[in-house]
């Protein structure tokens, strides 16, 4: 039986960042993924990294500008975001958000139409104004995933791909090994960061993790001239200009779906692309002539309150569970740090993450999904 001190189930950004942080602390780690690293949500998301709502925000904000250097590989991280209002109502909402950021001490500026166009040359005079977040930013999802994976290997960690974890071996209140179809990996501790599959894996340990899965879509255009700020949201879209110039955008209605225990069979996109296109053409009218060249979808698991779950179990007591509820890419530098702390020290060193604990769902109604309407279309 091969093994490591810590075996991590799931090679998305969360598991890989955790593995990298552990390897930085000199721990021997193995990350096991059912496919290629980052093949699920982690490699197909919007790349946004501005999660001011999270107890991990300050750490996210602190770490991103250093990540290229820390990892030794490019992540295409760029700082800051601008959010553009395209209606009276959005203008009211976005200014409310700006006011809140001021109150919380996050640097923001409210921009008039002219200032929006200076910072975002593809914007038009059809907007009402914008808000410039002098914090947060964005990065390239798959490049970042691979950077974590490679950096982890450079520190002596191991990545095992194309090997689905099927279960665990336990003895005297601990998980002693992680099993795949092909092998068994002995371990002192386990991290389960398997995205939508987290619930089924944790159920094997007798732990209920309330998650509902949904599919979300994005589109991308051919390259546009580079804008001073690439992280441009608004008009109820999120997205970014890649460093090549492409505009990658998502938003709009999601579809609740069932996902097999072994992972999604397919990740289809739909004609929702046309609704994303109309909004993007309005948000950035000077890009309206650009070709849409691709659309895609990814699967996201959501907890009942939409906040991540990062917790160390009491029994078995050597398991940390992490499910990021649709905000996990940007938070990954910080979530990995928190997971490292929980594995090695039992508590997060840089923030109170109690709100991310599983115990908050202790009294969850059994029909929580039905109540929220988070049910697949039958």
């Amino acid at each position: 039986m091969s093994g490591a001190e810590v075996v991590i189930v799931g090679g998305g950004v969360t598991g890989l960042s955790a593995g990298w942080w552990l390897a930085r602390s000199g721990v021997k780690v193995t990350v096991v993924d059912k496919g290629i690293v980052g093949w699920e949500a982690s490699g197909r998301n919007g790349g946004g990294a501005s999660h001011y709502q999270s107890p991990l925000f300050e750490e996210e904000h602190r770490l991103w500008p250093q990540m290229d250097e820390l990892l030794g590989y490019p992540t295409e991280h760029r700082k800051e975001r601008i959010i553009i209002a395209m209606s009276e109502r959005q203008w009211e909402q976005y200014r409310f958000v700006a006011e809140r950021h001021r109150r919380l001490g996050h640097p923001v500026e409210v921009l008039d139409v002219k200032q929006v166009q200076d910072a975002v040359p593809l914007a038009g005079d059809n907007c009402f104004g914008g808000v410039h977040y002098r914090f947060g930013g964005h990065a390239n999802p798959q490049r970042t995933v691979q950077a974590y994976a490679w950096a982890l290997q450079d520190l002596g960690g191991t990545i095992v791909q194309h090997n689905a974890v099927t279960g665990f071996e336990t003895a005297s209140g601990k998980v002693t090994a992680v099993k795949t179809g092909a092998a068994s990996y002995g371990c002192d501790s386990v991290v389960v960061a398997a995205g939508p599959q987290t619930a089924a894996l944790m159920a094997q340990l007798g732990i209920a993790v309330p998650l509902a899965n949904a599919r979300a879509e994005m589109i991308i255009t051919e390259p546009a001239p580079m804008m001073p700020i690439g992280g441009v949201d608004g008009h109820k879209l999120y997205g970014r200009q890649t460093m090549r110039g492409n505009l990658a955008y998502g938003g709009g209605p999601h579809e609740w779906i069932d996902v097999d225990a072994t992972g999604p069979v397919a990740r289809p996109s739909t004609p929702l692309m046309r609704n994303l296109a109309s909004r993007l053409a309005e948000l950035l009218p000077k890009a309206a002539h650009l070709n849409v060249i691709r659309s895609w979808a990814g699967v996201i698991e959501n907890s009942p309150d939409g906040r991540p779950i990062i917790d160390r179990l009491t029994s078995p007591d050597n398991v940390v569970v992490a499910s990021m509820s649709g905000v996990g890419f940007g938070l990954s530098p910080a979530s990995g740090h928190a997971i490292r702390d929980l594995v090695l020290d039992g508590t997060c060193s840089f923030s109170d993450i109690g709100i991310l604990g599983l115990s908050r769902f202790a009294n969850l109604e059994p029909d929580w999904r039905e109540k929220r309407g988070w049910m697949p279309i039958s």
Partner: protein
Amino acid sequence: MELNFAGTDLCAINGTRSAPDARYDVVVVGAGCSGTAAAIAAATAGSSVLLVDENPVSGALMGNDVPLYFGGRMTAATQNSERMLEAIFMSAPALEQAMEAGVEVLLGTSAWGVYRNGPGVSSLPEQVVGLADASRSWLVGFERIVLATGARDLALAFPGWNQPGVMGAAALRMLLTRYDAFAGRRVLVLGSHDLALESALLAHDRGLKVAGLVEVRDAPQGSADLVAQVAAAGIAIHCGQTIALAKGGIEGVEAATLSSGEVILCDTICMAVGLVPSIELVDAMHGPRTLIATRGGYIPAGEETVSAVGSCAGLADTGFDHIAYRMDWVRALSDVSADDTIVCQCEEVTRADLLGVQPPNYLARPAPMCARSLETLLVDGPANPDQIKRLTRAGMGVCQGRRCRDQVAMLLAIAADRPFGTIPLATHRAPVRPIPLKIMADWHESEAMSAAWDVWFGIPTQWVPVEDIGTPHEDEHRAMLYTGMYE
């Protein structure tokens, strides 16, 4: 924050999609011989039939090598869309017959995606095909769709291939026989199988000078009859040779240097090594496909509601192993060209960077990055072109890999020392044709869709700053950002 959930997620997709703009029993994509025949047959049998064909494509699209590898060798006439519409219509007499049979015919209309419910999606009211012309996009419902999308050019990299005048055999045929708008005069043909021989003969018949054929193997590969016709036309076949360089000026190609050193004057280099069935729509809808080397590559496995006809269903099987032949070409071209030869034209990715798994030039390459390569990646698992695409950007440009998808898979197969069929193909996704945002846009969105639209999931607790939880700010947040969402 007290939330009373009413059993409905107002930001979910449920019930928000519009019905298609039109419905037909049968939609046929591609108005070549087989597509038109299929349309006529269906209409004659009493079905309502829509037949669409993307030709004539706009000059701008042609410039992007959509849908075929035109290599910039079309005349200025292609900028005149009405004239091209007439040329296309006149070139296919069967179209008139189709219209007489009651088929609705739309030229200049591309099909960019086929959608139906299946794994991961149950929200579509019915199966639809997405269409677009020069002014709008729309959805059409169907009972059965017939893909008659033909075959596209296999493009292979060599030094200088990324300049005007290097083009594909299918594009040459299209420009000569349907658009009547080919701008070249002196054509060198790569390959000597039937496709290459037929291309040479067609060019010759049209009064063009054929400067010769280049064959990587030691003897001509096509049927003896065609080889004899080429010989009779006085056209030389240079066997045991490959192309080492295309030299040119501002107008594009002026001459080709063969691996022997021989220089052949030409303004067009026509790649006629192979055709690849155009299965983008099938791929993008996760339709089943099979690899058949004697039929040109991956072909749709065929289903009742989604069928393929003509070359889209595979090239005529003459027993010739197209894959082995292409691999011989790729190996020979790699041997005679430098590592800095561009493989992906859109993103200017060199073969060295593709096989080194290196990022584009605008990103830094620190020492650990330089130490990575396909070799190190293969230690972690088999080569996957989608993964390598996301790292190197090869195949990520506006042509979405039409010019490099196949050769990337072949180069990876060679580098990994694996059979071609074990390397997955980079995925196609909708839109399978580049379509401007303003054309793709749904400008008549349903009210239900507009009402359900949120930037993310519309979960009222998700974005409340942790500092505000349990304070009056939490309710302000909900009132301002989530009005009406939940009770």
